């Protein structure tokens, strides 16, 4: 979080506060954020904190009254307003209604409004499938990049012509305005390698990373230019931070060396663009054996949202000891548990997780990945309740 000149700081602060939004943390000097967090932490033992106070305290690695929660109920929220998957994915006003309904119904402190992982690829021209009963996805029988030469044919797109990304840029200000000081809206952007995966298919892309890295990286440069513009527009829309999804920085993707060479430099540029706007950088990676250290080195994230232990930690204790001071940990209730367990079992698992990870602040309770879109919401409620009760 960078320092700002006093006049610039004051004018942006007044502007955001008057418009009912949480100001981006980068507007404030570090000492001011730390001071506010210390005061909140001291007060937390006496009175409940407001959601934003709880978040600030957690983000500055101080202990709040209880851990904040991000239930990651995204597509599942469509059911609260009777919307279908295609409606949720393609109509920003319906998506806004659904996500706000989720926020009102469940509570929690953070909303991450992403629609699906194909938003950026669809705007580059990837043909899509919008099933009635499942998440939209690329039509993998018709990939945009059909061969190695296809990487060079990828062209930069203008955000104003990008229908799905533009929809999100309509959605974000609605959410930011409605949520106001009751929570944080955190934007979302798939990393450039993920976007490329949606347009080439994972198997071909993986082979190309070894056999044709220059072509792959040329396409990623084109994509990254657009993504930088996209995350800047998200920041301008008033989000508190932007989440970058870097799935391939894990055992499920590239080796550490290859990820640092191929995707690392591009996501570093995207993270810098977010930080320059004063917003938080969050990373989401639901792979196994996530390369936390590489991601911290390249993106300097404020938050890492994860589903499995990083590659260099054998248990939660080691995770907290190694990374607890460097980054806010967000996770990591596993999807299968949410799918088959009772709300009571979910709460007990959350209780253990809070016990292991919440000491000293710096922990946000959340599922490891998006809450299953077709699942009833009992276990999301259990998650939020566990944060309040055991946090």
């Amino acid at each position, binding site marked *: 979080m960078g320092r700002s000149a006093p006049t610039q700081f004051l004018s942006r602060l007044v502007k955001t506060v008057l418009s009912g939004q949480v100001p981006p943390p980068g507007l404030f000097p570090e000492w001011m954020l730390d001071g506010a967090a210390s005061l909140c932490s001291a007060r937390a033992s006496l009175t409940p904190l407001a959601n934003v106070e709880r978040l600030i305290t957690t983000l500055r690695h101080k202990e709040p009254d209880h851990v904040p929660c991000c239930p990651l109920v995204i597509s599942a929220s469509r059911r609260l307003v009777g919307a279908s998957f295609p409606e949720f994915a393609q109509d920003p006003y319906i998506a806004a209604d659904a996500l706000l309904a989720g926020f009102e119904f469940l509570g929690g402190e953070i909303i991450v409004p992403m629609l699906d992982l194909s938003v950026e690829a669809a705007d580059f021209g990837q043909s899509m499938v919008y099933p009635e009963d499942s998440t939209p996805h690329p039509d993998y029988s018709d990939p945009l990049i059909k061969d190695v030469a296809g990487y060079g044919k990828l062209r930069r797109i203008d955000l104003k012509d990008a229908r799905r990304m533009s929809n999100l840029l309509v959605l974000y200000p609605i959410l930011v305005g409605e949520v106001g000081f009751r929570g944080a809206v955190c934007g979302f952007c798939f990393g450039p390698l993920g976007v490329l995966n949606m347009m080439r298919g994972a198997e071909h892309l*993986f082979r190309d990373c070894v056999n044709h890295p220059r072509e792959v990286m040329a396409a990623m440069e084109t994509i990254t230019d657009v993504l930088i513009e996209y995350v800047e527009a998200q920041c301008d829309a008033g989000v508190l931070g932007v989440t970058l999804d870097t799935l391939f920085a894990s055992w499920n993707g590239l080796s550490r060396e290859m990820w640092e060479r191929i995707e690392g430099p591009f996501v570093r540029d995207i993270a810098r663009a977010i930080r320059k706007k004063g917003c938080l950088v969050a990373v989401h990676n639901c792979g196994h054996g996530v390369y936390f250290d590489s991601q911290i080195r390249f993106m300097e994230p404020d938050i890492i949202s994860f589903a499995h232990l990083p590659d260099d930690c054998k248990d939660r204790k080691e995770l907290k000891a190694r990374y607890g001071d460097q980054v806010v940990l967000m996770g990591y209730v596993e999807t299968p548990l949410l799918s088959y367990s009772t709300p009571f079992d979910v709460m007990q698992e959350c209780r253990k997780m809070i016990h292991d990870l919440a000491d000293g602040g710096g922990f946000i309770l959340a599922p490891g990945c998006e809450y299953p879109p077709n699942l009833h919401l009992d276990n999301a409620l259990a998650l939020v309740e566990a944060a309040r009760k055991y946090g």
Partner: protein
Amino acid sequence: MNDMDQQRDVLITLKRSVGAPGADALKEWVDRAMKESIPVHDIRCALIQGVETLRHRLMSSDFGMPDFLLSIDSVLDGLDMLSGMEDAGSMPDTPIVIGVVKGDPHDLGKNIIAGIYRAYGYRVVDLGRDVCSDAFVQGVALNGAKILGISAMMSTTMSAMKDIIRDVKAKYPETKIIVGGAPLNEVLARSYGADAYVESAVSVIEQTMAILDTD
């Protein structure tokens, strides 16, 4: 160096060439082994030992999916060179049917597992992705499958596994069913009626052999 020593060295180098950079190195060593008149069974065993080493490197930070996919490609190319040789069919004939559930477009995991099975000499019938329950049942019936592998990568599609397992087990209770995919775990897989849950390619062969041994 006598012929036996020379053959042993060729097999050791062949094993080490599995996963080594360069697509042609492995094929050159298979060719060399064939010219040395090394029994096909021994060549195949060296390749399997190489894959064995790779599998156990898979969930690690210095060996990613791209390296693994290319290594399996070159092993399968090497095995192709052996097809038609006299004792090439001496591996166990254990037909395995494999596919991705209906509505799910993600087939990377399934393809990796299919490639590993093939490398180990299993006969694999790949039904592809977006496969309905009837097609799984038919696939098992037509191929006399001893093993059925089902993959789902989305929480929205994984529940289809339950119906597929029920339908297959109703007609072919002796067929062992293995499931895998990101939204699953052991408990969920068992609750669907699967005989085994495979978390990754690292353990798939051991788990397959274990459930076949339970017959």
